[in-house]
């Protein structure tokens, strides 16, 4: 029952704020919004305490959801250590961001709607992570997509926001179509979608089918987690309120793809080809997105590309069998990227919405604490010890290296390393341009209120120490739990751990130095032709426009204007017209002259007479 409560509490908040929020006083809306998530966090924590042994799992089956023929799927929940971790991250970070939002959204007229959506998101995300079978997960998966749509387009009167929301939904749908087919394939071949029966079912599947299934499922992940080739929606998603970017488009929802692979690891672990695809896509995305972040001027979009890039790391981890590392990085990334976004939000709050880094600068003074928070987040992102990102990223790179040793491609490791360098450069650039470069704007910016500062402080703390505590101190509690959960044979004994760590730290430091050198004085660093190329996102959007969007629109227009009206309907009307013309012709035959009629009678007579005379019995 506790499991149900975890999911239902935020949904109750959604219902209350959604239905009656407009009539409630704002403080009450805030209390309902934050309180339900907090309660859910507490419930998750209490439930998680029951999971003493790695194989422990709490389940709750509510009712039979869909039953038709031999296929049955129930509305059931499942909490094991993986989902418990996710639930805690979702509710924990979620709670902080809810609190942050009280301050951030204080002036918005649609305050209650905002909190309703946010609560709906938390509830849906919890459904996603706690779903007891793939279909319930899919429900959550789609519902968070909906929330993403709603919150990106929260200020729907802005055309750009509405467009961005729609784009997010549609691009995600493309991935989801694959996901759905994967589910169908799985359901058809194994007859079950229950997570607790998946391991057995996976063993019985033919390798080809398994590869197909996992590839299709991964297609869903590329949509939701903004990987190549479906990443395009996430940068635009920055049209939404910044806390939303922090919660949904950095900390939680976009990691759903990673979670899904972790959740279905019994399947993916048996599908080597899929894993190599996952790793390759992850590495490629990581590098690709990082390079774009290098030239992006919009602070939030820098962070968005950074998120895409970091998600790429996580998929790389999944692909090279470093699933514990991947989930660990997921958790750490949730902390520091949320922090970065909240800091960016604080900047926007202070500057009344300016995000163009060309117009920012010199904020380190007035926004001291924000700058500090951003710096911590940036260092964590750059992978500088002892910040959180260091531990997780380093672990991934180690595994990538190890995979190369075991017959994998060394390119994965190199890409990861290169990305680490680029990451350090762009985040340094962002920090410098925003906080240290000569000021572009003088409007007495002021520090955010406590409701915003508090959550940032907590996240800063986590970004600072979370990695060390989770992976190192006191027997690395978090990482150990994950290691046991995935029960993957450790391949680390051959790893030259220390040298690798040294290299990756060096790369990070080198990147920061590069960033400082490049951007400390000058604002405009174009990077020449390469810069232009990157600024156009490697022409990916242009390619999509030219190859998919425009032709599709043309096709639609052609189908509607030519095929439909002139072709199909034209044929229908044409037939009707012909019959009508025949009617006109027959009127003309009816001349009105008796002698013509008599002639017709005679003609008929001759015909009938000849019939009777010629066709004798």
């Amino acid at each position, binding site marked *: 029952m506790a499991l149900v409560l975890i999911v239902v509490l935020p949904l109750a908040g959604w219902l209350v704020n*959604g239905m009656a929020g*407009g009539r409630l006083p704002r403080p009450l809306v805030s209390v309902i919004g934050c309180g339900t998530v907090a309660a859910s966090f507490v419930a998750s924590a209490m439930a998680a305490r029951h999971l003493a042994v790695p194989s422990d799992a709490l389940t709750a089956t509510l*009712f*039979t*959801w*869909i*039953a*038709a*023929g*031999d*296929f049955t799927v129930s*509305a059931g929940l499942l909490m094991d250590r993986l989902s418990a971790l996710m639930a805690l991250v979702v509710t924990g970070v979620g709670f902080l961001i809810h609190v942050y939002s009280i301050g951030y959204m204080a002036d918005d007229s649609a305050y209650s709607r905002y909190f309703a959506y946010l609560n709906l998101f938390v509830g849906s995300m919890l459904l996603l992570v706690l779903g007891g079978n793939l*279909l319930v997960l*899919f*429900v959550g*998966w*789609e*519902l968070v997509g*909906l929330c993403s*749509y709603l919150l990106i*387009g929260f200020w*729907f*009167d*802005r*055309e750009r926001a*509405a*467009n961005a929301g*729609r784009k997010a*939904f*549609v691009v995600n*749908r*493309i991935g*989801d*179509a694959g996901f*759905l*087919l994967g589910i*169908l*394939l799985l*359901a*058809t071949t194994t007859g079950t979608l229950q997570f607790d029966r998946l391991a057995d079912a996976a063993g019985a599947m033919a390798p080809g089918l398994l590869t197909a299934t996992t590839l299709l499922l991964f297609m869903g992940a590329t949509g939701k987690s903004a990987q190549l080739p479906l990443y395009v929606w996430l940068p635009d998603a920055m049209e939404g309120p910044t806390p939303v970017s922090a919660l949904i488009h950095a900390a939680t929802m976009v990691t759903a793809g990673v979670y899904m692979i972790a959740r279905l690891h019994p399947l993916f672990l048996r599908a080597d080809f899929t894993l190599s695809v996952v790793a390759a896509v992850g590495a490629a995305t990581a590098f690709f997105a990082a390079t774009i972040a290098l030239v992006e001027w919009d602070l939030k979009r820098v962070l968005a590309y950074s998120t895409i890039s970091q998600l790429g790391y996580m998929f790389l981890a999944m692909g090279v069998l470093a699933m514990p590392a991947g989930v660990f990085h997921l958790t750490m990334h949730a902390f520091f990227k949320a922090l970065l976004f909240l800091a960016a939000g604080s900047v926007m709050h202070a500057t009344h919405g300016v995000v163009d880094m060309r117009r920012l600068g010199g904020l380190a003074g007035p926004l001291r604490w924000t700058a500090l928070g951003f710096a911590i987040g940036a260092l964590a992102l750059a992978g500088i010890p002892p910040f959180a990102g260091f531990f997780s990223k380093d672990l991934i790179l180690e595994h990538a290296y190890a995979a190369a040793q075991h017959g994998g491609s060394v390119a994965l490791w190199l890409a990861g390393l290169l990305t680490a360098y680029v990451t350090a450069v762009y985040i340094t650039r962002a920090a410098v341009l925003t906080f240290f470069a000569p000021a572009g704007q003088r409007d007495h910016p002021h520090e955010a209120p406590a409701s915003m500062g508090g959550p940032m402080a907590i996240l800063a703390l986590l970004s600072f120490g979370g990695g060390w505590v989770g992976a190192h101190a006191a027997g690395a509690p978090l990482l150990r739990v994950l290691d046991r959960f995935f029960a993957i044979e450790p391949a680390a004994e051959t790893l030259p751990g220390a040298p690798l760590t040294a290299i990756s730290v060096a790369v990070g430091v080198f990147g920061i130095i590069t960033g400082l050198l490049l951007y400390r004085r000058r604002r405009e660093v174009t990077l020449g032709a390469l810069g232009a190329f990157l600024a156009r996102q490697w022409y990916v959007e242009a390619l999509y426009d030219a190859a998919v969007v425009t032709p*599709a*629109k043309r*096709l*639609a*227009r052609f*189908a*509607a*204007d030519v*095929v*439909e009206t002139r072709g*199909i*309907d034209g044929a*229908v009307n044409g037939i*009707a017209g012909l019959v009508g013309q025949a009617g006109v012709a027959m009127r003309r035959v009816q001349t009105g002259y008796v002698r013509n009629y008599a002639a017709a009678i005679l003609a008929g007579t001759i015909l009938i007479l000849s019939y009777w005379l010629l066709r004798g019995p």
Partner: protein
Amino acid sequence: MPVLSILIFLPVAAAIVVVCIDRRKTDALYGVGLAGTLAVLALSAVVFFRFDPNQAALQFVQRTAWIPSAGVSYYVGVDGISLPLMMLTTVIMPLALLSAWGSIADRVKEFVLSMLVLETALLGTFLSADLVLFYVFWEAVLIPMYFIIGLWGGPRRSYAAIKFILYTMAGSALMLVAIITLYLHSGAQPGERTFDLIRLGRLPVAMPLQAWLFGAFALAFAIKVPVWPLHTWLPDAHVEAPTAGSVVLAAVLLKMGTYGFLRFLLPLFPQAALQFAPLLSVLAIVGILYGGIVSWAQPDVKRLVAMSSVSHLGLVTLGAFALTVPAVQGSLLQMVNHGISTGGLFLIVGVLYDRTHSRQLDDYGGVAALMPRLAPIALIVVLSSLALPGTNGFVGEFLILLGTFQTNPAYAALASSGVILSAVYLLWMYQRVMQGPVAVKERARMTDLTRREQWLFIPLIALIFWIGVYPSPLLRRSEASVRALVEQVTSHQSPVTSYRP
């Protein structure tokens, strides 16, 4: 008690009361009409709850001779296949009437009469188990609908109405020939012959003939659905029909076609059905994709929703001809779902049209800001239509795809791309109407939903979530009948010998 007969003819009884009311008392006219349809709804709810889910055969059967000399009987009954459609009809009709109350103010008496007669014809269509009785009701639907479109419709109503009726009549004309042929094959002597659906279902018909008869029935149903490329009457009818007409047309009338697939086409001509299932499936898939693409390019909201019906019903058709239990169950459920969600979409368009008198997307924009109560309702209905999990649409769509996947993964894969398209055009529509800067010319007229209008949507939204979250009551009731149907059809996988009387 002949419950089903009372159910079928109760609207006509209400219509007789309506005839006696002074035509100027519009509220009384609507009131009686609404009361009549609500009474039907209550009665159908009784049937729904007393329906035995474990029984595949017809229940609440009533059977008497009607025209003995021609072998025609009055034979009605309800099973798991007709039950959902009966419920759909009885739920939609009061809503349709309610939607008109306030927007149709002239010639109210005739309008209410048409709607009531229409309901009787629709219920009769879904509950008949005698082919002639079925055909009578089937054709009887056309006349009231013709007038609803033709008299209370838009500027091109005359064209749309005549196109609607001629197109659908053209399809069903050959069905009549096929029905009679089937009857003539059911026995050597007039006395032995029958129009009884159940008995005809056991009648083996030799192959070339069976294929022809299949074709005749299929044509009638395919036009009604409408299956691509026989759909062009639909956008015109929808665009021109008044809101209530569009709602009934989309929600219920189109289901007559898909219902016909399940009720008549499959059991009567199983071998031909197996043989032609690929053809119909391919047409269905073309419809899914084509309908989606064309919807996207529509500047007219109603035309957009109408074309989306082509797409959605393609999916229903695909499910019907997948011939697996989940697919057929899903198909049946999706008929209900489409009724709810597309009915809802048309109600929304109607609410907007009442205020702006425009159906052009260009005349809208930013409505959400002006009508904050309508916006979330519209969103929920849109989401239901694009089959978001948690709403009714998903359950049906998933079952159809699952069942189709079991027999032909390629079909399922193609059909699931319709999932993408529906998001494209529906969200496009939602954005153009609801979002963006306020572009409506006369802001003052964009008052939010009235209490009456809210009551249009409350039942629909309740159903959207109810079926989305807990579809068992529906699925359980249809399971036995669907299973029997699928088994009956698939048992003919091998050819059987021809029938000699």
